[in-house]
């Protein structure tokens, strides 16, 4: 992180808004937008819910491998627009279905917040 608030790629990291919206809220909004986009590819009965407990990967999950990768790519793109930094959700081999970060919406959102704060070098919320 540079002294002027930009990251090493020159883009500004966006601070949370003054009205108290947390980083987690923003990340969840991004993830729910991504879910909405992925759902357009799915028949109605297979669409996934915008909920913290929605299972993304593993037993009970409705996304196949292609659907999950599409979700990852869309989410990464939206996170870059939201945070101003690029985050790689697939580093550190996160695909373990029971303990990995992609298990549920909540687990992934928490992981993203950690990654974002590590990238910026300070808490963002």
């Amino acid at each position: 992180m540079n002294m002027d608030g930009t990251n090493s790629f020159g883009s500004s990291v966006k601070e949370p808004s003054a009205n108290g919206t947390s980083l987690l809220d923003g990340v969840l909004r991004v993830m729910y937008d991504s879910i909405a986009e992925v759902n357009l590819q799915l028949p109605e009965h297979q669409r996934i819910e915008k909920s913290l407990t929605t299972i993304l990967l593993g037993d009970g999950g409705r996304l196949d491998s292609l659907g999950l990768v599409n979700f990852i790519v869309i989410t990464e793109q939206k996170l870059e627009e939201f945070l101003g930094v690029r985050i790689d959700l697939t580093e550190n081999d996160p695909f373990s279905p029971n303990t990995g970060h992609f298990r549920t919406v909540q687990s992934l959102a928490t992981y993203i917040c950690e990654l974002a704060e590590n990238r910026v070098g300070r808490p963002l919320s």
Partner: protein
Amino acid sequence: MKVYLIADFNLDTLGNYLANSESSLQISVSSAPFGQVIPALLQAHEAPPADFAVVWTSPETMVPSFAESLNYATIDEDRLLAEVHEFAECLRKAQKHYRAIFVMSWTLPYYRRGNGILNLKGQGARKLLLKMNLKLAEELEDSGSIYLLDAQRWTDAVGKNSYSPKLWYMTKTRFHADVLRRAASDINAAISGVLGDCKKLVIVDLDNTLWGGVVGDLGWQNLKLGGHDYLGEAFIDFQKALKGLRNRGVLLAIASKNEESVALEALAKHPEMVLRPEDFAAWRINWNDKAANIVELAAQLNLGLQSAVFIDDNPVERARVREALPEVQVPDWPDDKTLFASRLLELDCFDSAYATVEDASRSQFYADEKQRGSYRKTVNSAEEWLLSLQTEVSVEELSDVNRIRVIQLLNKTNQMNLTTRRVSEQELEDWLQQHNRKLWAFRVKDKFGDSGLTGVLSVEMQSGIARIVDFVLSCRVIGRRVEDAMVAFAAEYCAAAGLEELHANYLPTAKNKPCLSFWMSSGFSYDEEENRFGWLLSKPYPFPKGVGIRRPQTGGTSQSQQRVSRESEGVVLPVFTNSD
């Protein structure tokens, strides 16, 4: 509708969008084995049957010379273009197995900057790609049912995210889901265009839609239109875009809450007005409910509500029409007037698979029709009016000149359509290979103007009976006895061929009741159980009074009727010559 996907990368996401879209087409999707593009095209007869095929390839895979050039090897450009030709040949070989094939133009990711400022010189990659796409477009120009879709539009719209290396390495999907979603939308529009289901009429508001301000308050001199004003320019461009639609054959109409004289004066007199009163086929400028006005406009223009698009800056008016007339398309409209032209230009509901002379002259036809209507008011009876029109019907056999218009009529006409048979160009060609089948096209003109090629009739002759397979007439000329002339000509031909009966089996649809009404009053006998009309050819079917008929020329110089014997089915098919 069944769509078969053929690609050298994973197209499953496109298939998912097509299969799960909210379009009324209800598409089911199957895919060729991954990376088997050429075998899938050359062995299309072994593929699962499908109505349409989508072919999406990478330029470096289909054109090996291009792959070499991407590594800055010097290539033989003639060889490059020959490889494009070979690919086009494979597409043509597959053509007859599908109603249409949609081929995507070739694109490159934005990050391939090639050799920088030399990329559009010499053998720069971008220059070669332009040549390849142009060559492919030229190769497919005359391949009637193969359409090249512009993939560059989709990648431009998505921007730098259109190519995702992560998607490629993890799933062998070349494009971001956003690109594939836009592609699916355009494929839906393309299929609708091939099926003849495109919009024919745009109904626009006036105040703050065609110009800035309320003409009734400001006067036409003070409207925001043109001039050195960014919004004035935006309205000009919007009007130009509407005029462009008119040139494509889409009718324009007005539904506005205004004093008619005030609004028409503005259209006629404002020096920067692009659209003038004569550009509009009809208008309802009054203080009445717009939904009711739209119903009247559609009826006046003899179009179904499903053919209409309504554009209004006022969201309340848009909501009203959406609720009252769900068949009318009411696109979401931006508040920002600088976006009006671009919003109109990106609408895909006008996409048509055909561009005929009849389309381009549609507005002129309605102007002629206004004259006919005005003239009608000056004569005493409908009979007198019909006799005085001096209608002339010219009969043609299917040819390269009229083929596209014939296919268009067969696939787009709903009201005066006996069987609503929909066929591709190839299917019609194959059907006409049999000697006991004939098809004629009918051109109509009268003293007010030329309505163009507006009718199609085909028959199949077997065991003494001629069965009308296609009986189609454009709504432009319904009720002017062209229908009777078509039937009379067919009866004359079949009688001369030695057949005994002429049959017409009516297949009801939601829209072709006008056809039933015609046949019920045609004088044919009616078998209600079979829904079949019949005429004994021992009795001539009368040609309608007041309609001249010009029979097809067949190249002979004799003015008399000749008979030519054919082997198939023992049917003797007469050869008519121009008797005028």
